């Protein structure tokens, strides 16, 4: 059983949903980013998404764009994100790690070598934002042992769902809004209608992302789904602690982890 499947099974047995915080690798520098990653499980992260910086993140709003720019300036890359995963795995062999990013850096790295290095580094799943199922053969043939996490959007029509779900593994990432990351939030009633539509067609866990910002929204998300992904609001916390040059300060790591802790409390209280 993959780490992702094992973690969702464990949480199901405990009767609660998963908190999946996101961090951009190397934002604002490799050391701070690594400290945040290491601290996340202790702060209540059940799975962690690591963003791979890219110059042209067309699905992301200003918050994640800026995180990517800081990360690139600090030397961030796909190789750097993999190195962070290897470091993390020295102390933690259970928390699932998912790489989220765009296809071009993977093509430049070489999809086959990338998948091999993911497996040997301890990556569990991949979310490739600009690789819809129709283009999945760019990476999927090499991805055995890695969960290929597919995105489902509010615009994904019923007749398209089988195409999206075919070849999906790990969990389904429900993009809760038609829009870019961090811009607005989904309505709880929309989610209550959308999630069962997906559940009817797959046994995979469903996580909600894009627009989940507060502990309360995270709680609402896990009431209807199996997990909540939170990115932009955590990056905003991080950005708020940086000095005028964009460098980390003494309080950066702690502030982000406090944010994770508050979200974790929201998620854990959701079904009480």
């Amino acid at each position: 059983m993959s780490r992702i499947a094992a973690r969702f099974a464990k949480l199901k047995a405990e009767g609660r949903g998963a908190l999946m915080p996101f961090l951009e690798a190397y934002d604002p520098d490799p050391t701070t980013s690594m400290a945040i990653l290491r601290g996340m499980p202790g702060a209540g992260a059940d799975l962690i998404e690591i963003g791979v910086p890219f110059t042209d993140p067309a699905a992301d709003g200003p918050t994640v764009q800026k995180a990517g720019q800081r990360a690139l300036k600090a030397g961030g890359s796909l190789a750097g994100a993999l190195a962070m995963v290897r470091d993390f795995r020295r102390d933690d062999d259970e928390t699932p790690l998912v790489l989220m990013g765009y296809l071009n850096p993977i093509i430049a790295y070489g999809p086959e070598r990338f998948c091999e290095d993911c497996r040997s580094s301890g990556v569990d799943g991949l979310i490739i934002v600009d690789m819809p199922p129709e283009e999945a053969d760019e990476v999927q043939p090499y991805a055995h042992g890695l969960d290929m996490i597919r995105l489902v959007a509010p615009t994904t029509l019923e007749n398209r769902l089988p195409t999206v779900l075919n070849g999906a593994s790990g969990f389904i990432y429900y993009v809760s809004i038609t829009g870019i990351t961090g811009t607005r939030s989904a309505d709880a009633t929309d989610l209550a209608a959308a999630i069962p539509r997906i559940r009817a067609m797959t046994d995979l866990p469903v996580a909600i992302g894009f627009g989940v910002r507060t502990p309360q929204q995270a709680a609402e998300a896990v009431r209807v789904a199996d997990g909540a992904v939170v990115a932009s609001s955590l990056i905003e916390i991080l950005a708020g602690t940086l000095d005028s040059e964009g460098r980390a300060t003494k309080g950066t790591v702690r502030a982000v982890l406090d944010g994770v802790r508050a979200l974790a409390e929201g998620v854990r209280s959701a079904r009480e």
Partner: protein
Amino acid sequence: MSNALPNSLRMGPDSRGRFGDFGGRFVAETLMPNIQEVQEAYEAARKDPEFEKEWRRLLKDYVGRPSPLWFAERLTSHLGGAKVYLKREELNHTGAHKINAVIAQIMLAKRMGKKHVIAETGAGQHGVATATACALFDLKCTVFMGATDVERQKPNVFRMKLLGAELNAVTSGAATLKDAMNEALRYWVAHVHDTYYCIGTVAGPAPYPQMVRDFQCVIGDETKEQCLAVEGRLPDVVVCAVGGGSSAMGIFHPFLDDAEVKLVGVEAAGHGIETGAHAAAINGGTPGVLHGNKTYLLQDRNGQIQEAHSISAGLDYPGIGPEHSWLHEIGRVEYTAATDQEALDAFQLCSKLEGIIPALESAHGLAEVIKRAPTMPKDSIIVLNLSGRGDKDIFTVAHHMGVSL
């Protein structure tokens, strides 16, 4: 629209939107249903004789087609080789080839019931064309333009506003064409239901590369007919500047199966390919995925997209249409490059010898003609796609000549 033969190079793309390995639909899931909607609407429209008839009427009476094929006698005698012909797309309404495909796309948007049209623009030519067509069709228009380009293309910015378009100055990234395209895609994702994205070049997710090419093929179809009428044969060489490559695909495509016609695309070499400050995706880039398609791109070894540089805002893009990448790999089209300086020299030469001020984009193609025509026999024929007029560029050129306006 094309009379493709068996074993033709004009059959692409395949059902996945691929030209060989290039092209495709590399977009976020939120946009996939939209892309498919555009595909279906396009396929229905191109089979509809009424759509074709209305587009042809607008091309004739509103755009002013056919554009002439001008025998550039003074330029020919100056170069001392092949007969130089200019396909005068700069005479089109709005001053460039862009309007050909824009009119058709706005007709499509209207047919699809969309209320709002968005477009990206670099030099501003596509933005002006889109704003123009939206005014004609009474649709709301928002143009995304990099803040850097807004600064260096002020006349076009003002034109777009006069035409009633809303301008969105993009400050993310390097604030140029690629960032304008990112921002337009972001906007589209958030407004999928009522918005049509009018892409200005033969790039982006399928069906755009094919659709924009098909609508631009009017350039090559006319050129072929006009050359046969005047010279009784096809040209030996057809030259066109290439940024995204819509004017080039438009003139090349109808000649793809005429093996005797040599096709030459001219990329922007900026300060020189060896300096790294250029916009030559094929000559100085490698294949990758950006803006919905797989194609040649300017990128570093980590797959991060690099900023393009060209004196011409319309060529200042780190990618190229996927069909060009394929035509390069199969060797049907030769892709060369011209520097900023070569384009500036050609710009001035054409103005003085022919009384035609070419766009800086087109001047890159002309620079290649200036190199090539003298090496060709006197009875041979070289055609340049003069894709746009240079009025918009006079400030840039004056600046480089040390003249303040």
